[in-house]
């Protein structure tokens, strides 16, 4: 067998394997989309079905999103967007600030702080829910967006990531700027921030992803159904007595849209950021 034939066979095999995996990955979406076109009772009566039936399929369910409980779905959507933008912007800003500080300066207690950051990445956040909740009540922050993002203001994984990223940047840049009389924060904002764009890209995706699908904590904090996020709102359409699939399915499809758009936009910087950044340890 010649080298070329072998290569060709390998190409076919490898690509075929990936195609199979891709089909496995995408089939739930195909199903989701199909069911979003059918009346909700179809799902309840017949469960999963991969057949497209033009007779009963239409985009009517999508219109129903506007009318379902006076258009509450779009309130959830708005909440989710506001929270995602707030949480991501604040997280990126503070995370990079701290990460940069930990990478570029030597100071007493630095190793302790780094160790704490590492440790926190291993703490299951779930165990802190109860006291955090009691704290929010005392601070009268229940049902506020700030209460929802409070535990994610300075995410340890971002600090860790930005620190690693900054370590990979040449220190000379910083020193040269010092010589030019730039202040510490001036260096950060004018020189480091532009250089950390790939890292910001990577963290934007991770943060948006975490925030968009976060269920447990927003569920505990938010108490007004107009302020719910999409995952919580969607959970209310799932009841022990039958799910409201005509809202659930189109709602789920619509919910994928913004996050996929963000992903497609930031994808390049995302991978570049990861490649040069944190995970190199």
């Amino acid at each position: 067998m010649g080298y070329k034939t072998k290569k060709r066979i390998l190409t076919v095999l490898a690509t075929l394997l990936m195609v199979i995996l891709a089909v496995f990955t995408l089939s739930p979406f195909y199903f989701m989309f199909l069911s979003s076109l059918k009346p909700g009772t179809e799902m309840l009566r017949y469960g999963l079905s991969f057949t497209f039936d033009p007779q009963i399929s239409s985009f009517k369910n999508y219109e129903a999103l506007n009318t379902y409980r006076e258009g509450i779905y779009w309130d959830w959507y708005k909440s989710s967007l506001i929270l995602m933008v707030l949480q991501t912007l604040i997280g990126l800003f503070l995370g990079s600030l701290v990460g940069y500080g930990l990478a570029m300066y030597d100071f007493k207690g630095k190793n302790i702080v780094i160790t704490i950051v590492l440790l926190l990445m291993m703490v299951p956040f779930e165990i802190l829910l109860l006291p955090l909740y009691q704290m929010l009540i005392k601070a009268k922050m229940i049902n506020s967006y700030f209460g929802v993002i409070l535990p994610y203001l300075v995410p340890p994984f971002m600090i860790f990531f930005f620190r690693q990223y900054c370590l990979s940047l040449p220190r000379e840049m910083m020193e040269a700027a010092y010589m030019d009389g730039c202040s510490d924060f001036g260096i950060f904002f004018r020189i480091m921030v532009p250089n950390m764009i790939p890292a910001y890209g990577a963290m934007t995706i991770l943060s948006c992803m975490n925030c968009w699908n976060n269920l447990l904590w927003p569920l505990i904090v938010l108490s007004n159904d107009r302020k719910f996020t999409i995952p919580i709102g969607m959970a209310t359409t799932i009841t022990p007595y039958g799910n409201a699939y005509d809202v659930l399915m189109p709602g789920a499809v619509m919910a994928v849209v913004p996050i996929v758009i963000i992903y497609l936009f930031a994808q390049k910087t995302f991978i570049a950021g990861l490649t040069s950044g944190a995970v190199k340890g």
Partner: protein
Amino acid sequence: MKKMLVVLLAALILMLSVTAFADDEPIKLTLWTFQELHLSLYREMLDKWNADPANPKLEIDMQVYDYEDMHNKLTIALQTGEGAPDISEIEISMYANYLKGDIQLAPLNEYVEPIADHLVMSRMNNYARDGKYYGIDHHIGATVMFYNTEILEAAGIDYKDIKTWDDFHEAGKTVLEKTGKPMTTWESTDCWSIYPIVSQHGGDWLTWDNEVVMDSPVVASTLQFMKDMLADGTAVAAPGGSHHTEEYWGWMNGGNCATVSMPFWYLNRFTNYMPDLAGKIKVAPLPTWPDGGHKSSQMGGTGVSVIATSPNAEVAKAYIAFATLSFDGCVNTWKLLGFDPILMDVYGTPEMQEPNEFFEYYGDDIFTNMMTVLDDIPDTAITDMYPAATDIVKAQMAYDLVYTDKTGEEIAKECADQLRSLID
């Protein structure tokens, strides 16, 4: 940079500001439920309430949550004294959690006592402590048998001839032999199969003194009966684990099983999810036990309650009594929700016989048999251990019944021991 900070700060402050309450004329109440369906009743009765000039105008903010979440949030709100609604629905198996310690629900005796003779009081007792009634149910939840007459006729059986559970089992053998289909299904992840039959047989999980009787002979023998039906194939595990899954509905709708025993409110599951069976399903009382017991049993339910600390507790009480205990409210409970109302006066009245989708689906004799069982519905001992008992039935007993080789007695014993270990 400064600008960015200012903008961020402004955004934060904006987010922090919680919805402001305007000082408008109508009294504003908040109502929580986990069952969106119920809202149609509340809305209808709210319109009627506001139409009467004698009543103070009300505006009710109705919030729907997920089942678990609603109860969790209510627990937290009551424990912390922050954020509770004025009115909340509480599911029956969770109710006892809210009757512990300092009860934070408002007693409704002034509305219940005057009409006590007209109510199915075994339903009111579910939500009572020390003679105080804290919750009102929408329905009796009398357990009935839904018969698929097409399958039974194919096996040459008239469902009216099935009087006892032994008849039922025998009929099942014929059905299996003639059609190859099971007679009934038992749930493996929920309690709707086990409890109603146990209760009808005269058993219960607890006594009112919190003594565990989950392993009494009557429970063990009922479980063994169910087990025997599984063993010879006349009963099978409900597809999807319970009678509330897409898998079960699709399967049942396909005419794959002859019967199911469920509370009365299951009526609308057939009309909504099993349309192909229209005209084939008959509602009948449960078969009885030769060795005693009752004609039916009650199961499931939701207690509508008023939170005692609400500044508008009085008007909230008046409203829920109007919505759920009045003749009008109870007739609408049937019309809008398809439930069996707890006010006995409504049964047999022309208002209850007005044509609707249910009469169309089941025929017009829905209530004919139903009314004969209303006088013999046993109480359930809903003590503060009842939620724990229900948990064990759902999570352990039902599973063991369907998926293990344990005998009825062994299952009852193990579950009872587990429940006992939870009582300090």
